[in-house]
């Protein structure tokens, strides 16, 4: 089997994933508990029903705050060579993707609010079939990588 891609993404993303995972769990939990309470009040479901969403959110949120970001970061790898972009990701379902440089139509960098606070950016590389992300690099590294991919992605004659 081909060896994994060489580069890791920025370590600080673990913290970003923790925070966003926590917020996500909170939001999901609020919706779930609201729904459950509604069922209890209006439709007289048994009183223990709201425990279910609470439990689900605690488990999910717990994982998202503790082990998952670390595992995700450890698995996430990328490698940009002259011919292709090579990605690996996934905690349970591990996926490796090859994107030839000649297939890349455009690249851009993007930052959310949280990412900006940590000085991180995402590189998006688009082909005719869809967009591939390298989720967390330091701003300088992301800019540098974006420009490198752009110059490598030669204009090819065979169109799509």
């Amino acid at each position: 089997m081909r060896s994994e891609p060489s580069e890791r993404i920025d370590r600080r993303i673990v913290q970003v994933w923790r925070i966003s995972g926590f917020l996500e769990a909170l939001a999901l939990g609020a919706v779930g508990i609201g729904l459950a309470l509604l069922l209890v009040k209006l439709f007289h479901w048994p009183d223990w029903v709201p425990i279910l969403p609470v439990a689900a959110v605690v488990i999910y949120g717990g994982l998202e705050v503790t082990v998952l970001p670390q595992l995700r970061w450890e698995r996430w790898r990328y490698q940009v060579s002259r011919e292709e972009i090579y990605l690996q990701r996934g905690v349970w379902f591990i996926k490796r993707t090859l994107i030839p440089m000649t297939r890349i139509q455009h690249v851009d960098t993007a930052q959310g609010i949280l990412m900006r606070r940590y000085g991180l950016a995402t590189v998006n590389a688009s082909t005719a079939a869809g967009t591939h992300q390298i989720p967390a690099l330091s701003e300088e590294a992301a800019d540098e990588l974006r420009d490198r991919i752009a110059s490598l992605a030669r204009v090819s004659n065979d169109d799509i």
Partner: protein
Amino acid sequence: MMISEPRRLHLLGILLGAFKLLKDFLLPLVIFLVTRILQRGYSPFWLFVTGTVIILVVLAWGLVSWLRFTFRVENGALVVEQGVLVRKRIVIPRERIQAIDFNQGVWHRLFNVVSVQVETAGGEKPEAILYALSMPVARELRQSLLLSGVEEGRKGVSGAAILKRLSFKELLLFGATSGGALGLVVSLFSGAWALLDDIGLELNWQQYVNWVWSYVNLMYLILFTVLTLWLLATLGMVFKYGGFTLTRSGDKLQVVYGLLQRRQVSIPVGRIQAVRLVEGVLRQPLGCFTLHVESAGYGPQSHEKTLLWPLARQKELESLLGEFLPEFAIKIPLQPLPFKAMRRYVLRGFIPGILLVLPVLAWLPRGELALALPILGALWGFWGYKSAGWGVQGNMLAVRSRSLARTTFIVPNRSVQSFSTSYTIWQHRAGFMSFDLDLASQASFGLTDISLTDADTLTHWFGQRHRGNFDETWPHTRDFSHEKI
């Protein structure tokens, strides 16, 4: 011949524009008329005046939008200017055009006029629609747009046009095996059901059945209904796909079909990303398949537009591809999945079924019948395993799989936009991997549970082209016609 001066559409365009406006505003118009009549009563004079005003407004709109609509070919690009309230200018470079379709509705056919749709990669809708062009102008336009630089470089190669017509027998068989009847039956029954419910007819099932039973033999009734619907569906398909012809002239494929609404699809061969063979559940036992092409101009929704040939027998495949798409006519031996993968496929069908059925078994008396579901699931999984296979020959890959219909993709290396291998930890422990690849047509396909070495082979196959140690010039100079298919 080029159309460099701005041109207007055929005069029929005025009428068609008016119709379109009428159709778009039909619902609010009807609501307005009905409320007005309900409130103030009906008077013939008022109706006459309103009717005239509406017709005049609509015709005026048709005229103005027709006047504002111009098109031309300028510097190798199609330029369309249109719009009454918002003016729009569309420029489509020739190199970006993936396909050009002609459509004829009944009105179009009366005046020998076509609606021309220009498709580029991506997007759901056609990039530009010239909704009324006289036939000669449309042909001229297509001629000047579909000549790409690539084709000009190899004029000598393009020979005379070859043409193939679908025989009536094949058309009938295609319609009869379309499975459209099943859809009709389901929609009709569910429709009738909902209707009866709406009316408030409390259906007492058993009584109803008994009643029918006492008068006619129910079996005959069902048989009769199904047969009628099936005939109707077949007839529908015959009208839709009647007169199907496939032509190849030079580097251009053209498909024409339809008895009432006539469609004409032109695709440059260089724009074809992959070929897809679909063997429907009803067609496979007869040894028949349907041939589709993947083109970036048509997304996954436009199923019918990518139809290249409706029905052929398995043994005709070689000659069909050899004649019309020699670029794809390569014999690729398929290898099955490893024997060890069979268990995994069967379980993948069985487990969801049993999970669904467990509550039924636990709570309902006489729930044993529900056990059929996981068994069917297991059979389905086994079927999928038996059907799956893949093979590599030169720069071509063939992948066969089944969800319901058995589908075989034949794809050249250069069309693959990205290639992924993936595995879960369990899967990896068992020595398996999955792969999938994406095409510009937004199609995505692959197989689950190939061996690790095979995954390597495929990764290598994919790497060949873009690392530059493979025949770079596919398909423009390589001639496959001498190869055995």
